[in-house]
């Protein structure tokens, strides 16, 4: 049996970004493809980071409703520290006509962004749901606005099946630029991929951690670096996932 590995993102064995600098904000992006739904990774963030109780988590998804997210993003039973997780249902947000209004309506109650982490699932769907939407305005009116006013850190979960080199439509172009910009705007990129060859008994897929374009070493104390790595993962049970090399 392979030896279990701990998930490390930073060289100081932390997973979540350090909050010591109050002005420092960051984006994590988790990219996955069909068949490897990565909520277990979020659970690892919440449960395995040593200081996760210092953060306030907000979970918002455009594709899954609150009931589902409450079932799947939870604090482990054995975990003693009290982690603050709030759920904001965004599934009906796809029916909206204006992004600034959506932000105001859904996150009205949030006044200070310090220590807040937003877990945002598939914001790129807004490109399809709003007529004439571009990836630039999606960043400007939605993601940047959230980051400036409401949340210090944002974790974006996106399905890269939309990403395509062969651009044949306006929408395709918008999706592709969205993913390209996301890689520049992120501090850390997690890529979760299923095996190309199909089903295997003891491996579910691979998890790759890479440094994104926005990572600035001067903002981190003690020259903390991102540990770039590639793991295999195997989903043993719901939310029990083994990482190994």
């Amino acid at each position, binding site marked *: 049996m392979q030896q279990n590995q701990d998930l490390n993102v930073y060289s100081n064995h932390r997973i979540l970004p350090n909050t010591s600098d109050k002005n420092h904000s960051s984006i994590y992006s988790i990219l996955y493809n*069909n*068949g490897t739904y990565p*909520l277990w990774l979020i659970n690892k963030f919440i449960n395995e980071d040593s200081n996760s109780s210092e953060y306030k988590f907000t979970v918002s998804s455009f594709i899954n409703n609150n009931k589902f997210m409450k079932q*799947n993003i939870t604090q482990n039973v054995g975990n003693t520290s009290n982690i603050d997780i709030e759920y904001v249902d965004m599934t009906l947000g*796809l029916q909206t006509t204006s992004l600034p209004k959506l932000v105001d309506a859904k996150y009205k109650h949030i006044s200070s962004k310090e220590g807040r982490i937003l877990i945002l699932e598939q914001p790129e*769907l807004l490109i*399809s749901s709003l007529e004439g939407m571009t990836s630039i305005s999606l960043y400007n009116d939605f993601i940047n606005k959230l980051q400036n006013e409401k949340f210090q850190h944002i974790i974006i979960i996106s399905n890269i099946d939309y990403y395509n080199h062969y651009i044949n439509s306006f*929408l395709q172009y918008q999706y592709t630029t969205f993913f390209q910009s996301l890689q520049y705007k992120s501090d850390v990129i997690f890529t979760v991929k299923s095996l190309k060859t199909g*089903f295997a008994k003891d491996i579910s897929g691979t998890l790759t951690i890479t440094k994104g374009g926005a990572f600035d070493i001067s903002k981190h104390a003690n020259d903390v670096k991102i540990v770039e790595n590639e793991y295999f993962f195997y989903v043993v049970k719901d*939310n029990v996932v083994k990482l190994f090399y």
Partner: protein
Amino acid sequence: MSFQRRNQAIGSNSNANSVRQISSRVGGMSLRDQQSIGRQQPVSRTPPVMKTPQVNILGVKPSVSKSSGIQVTSIGSTTVDNLVFKQHGGIPIGTTTLIKDISRKDVKDDENLKYLSSLSYQNTIGLQFIATGVYQQRRSLKKDITDDDTEKIGHLGIVIGEWIDLHTIPGVYVSKSKKSSSSLKDKEQNESIVSKLSEVEQKRKDLKIAWRYGMKNNDFKDGKNGETEFKEDPNFVPRLDISGHVFPAATREEVLQINIAGNTLENILMSVQQAITKNPKKLIRLYLPNFLNPKFYPKSYFQHHNIMKFLNGLKTLQSMNDSRFVTLITTTADFNIPILETFSHTIVELKPFDQQTIDYLTKNYKSQGLPNKVQQGMLNVIKMGKVSEFGHMSVRMNEIVYHVSKNGFVVELWSIPVDAGDDEKKDTKKLDIENKKASKSIEPHGHDHESHSHISKDLEY
């Protein structure tokens, strides 16, 4: 597995009581009745224990997976339920299944729009999906099956698309003895010949299979040789006969048809919602055939924000009624858009073989006396409802093959047939196929099949 779990739950609730009840009931019955009770009893007993409202819907059973609380219903084909939806034994209720048909790449004139040629596979499975609903609905109205006082609840099928002829919904397979009482004599004669033939075939096939698997018996564990003997449970899925049609024809109460032409996506959603509220208990089987096919769908439907709002609304409706709502969408891959996949829980891809492979298979199966066994294409599972969502790996490529037979859409595990060839040309073809397969599949049993076919080939020489 699930059966045991339920038994424990019953025991924990009122152990002595329920045992007494069962034994007293069993006392006065014939062996046959006992068996049927044994099968039905968990379903009818569960409501007080599980406290889920849907348990007395006919044709619904708990998933074979360990996660509790998942209920499944049949897609209308025993083999699809057991092989494609292997983790559950049926479609999990509250999910959307997308079947996308990849058009045939060997069509010579590329000018021809390919999607027009490949409508039938998807619709076969879709009609079976609806027919199962009709069958369960009719069973629910029969009084004799209510062995206790619990109310039996049926299904409501909703078909969105006026091009589906409801008269072509397949009927339930009637065995020869029962059929003799029916009035349709010509048809009966024809079909009895067919069924005789198929009996002979079946015997042959059994022999052949016994011969083929005899030497490799040890390698095949329970799940794997199951491809020939899935237990048919008429309470869960009827045996359908796609050459016959359901009689009497389905009524509006059984299958509701919503038109596309002259309708908007919002209105369609409204009609679905109305149908749901009108039938507060029934299991809703929603079927969207040929979704977004320009042959049927007008231009305005293609705008992304419209589709998105429709799918979003559908998903909301589904999550509001997640204990009694199943959706099946079929589409052609040419019109597949990523958002459709995002909103589906299960994605199944049908990939027809090219003509060369079909010729090869036909030749070999004919020489074995199994002309009906020729497979038509590969079935790939890309995503599985209530499994992929939890991060489990469920992608299965190039493992399952499908074909449309008299009993409808049938799938089986892919294996290369015994090569009947004596000229070298075929061998090269075979190699091609094997190479293709080996490069794609790492599943151990795939190799079993291959090595096994080698052995049998040698034997034949």
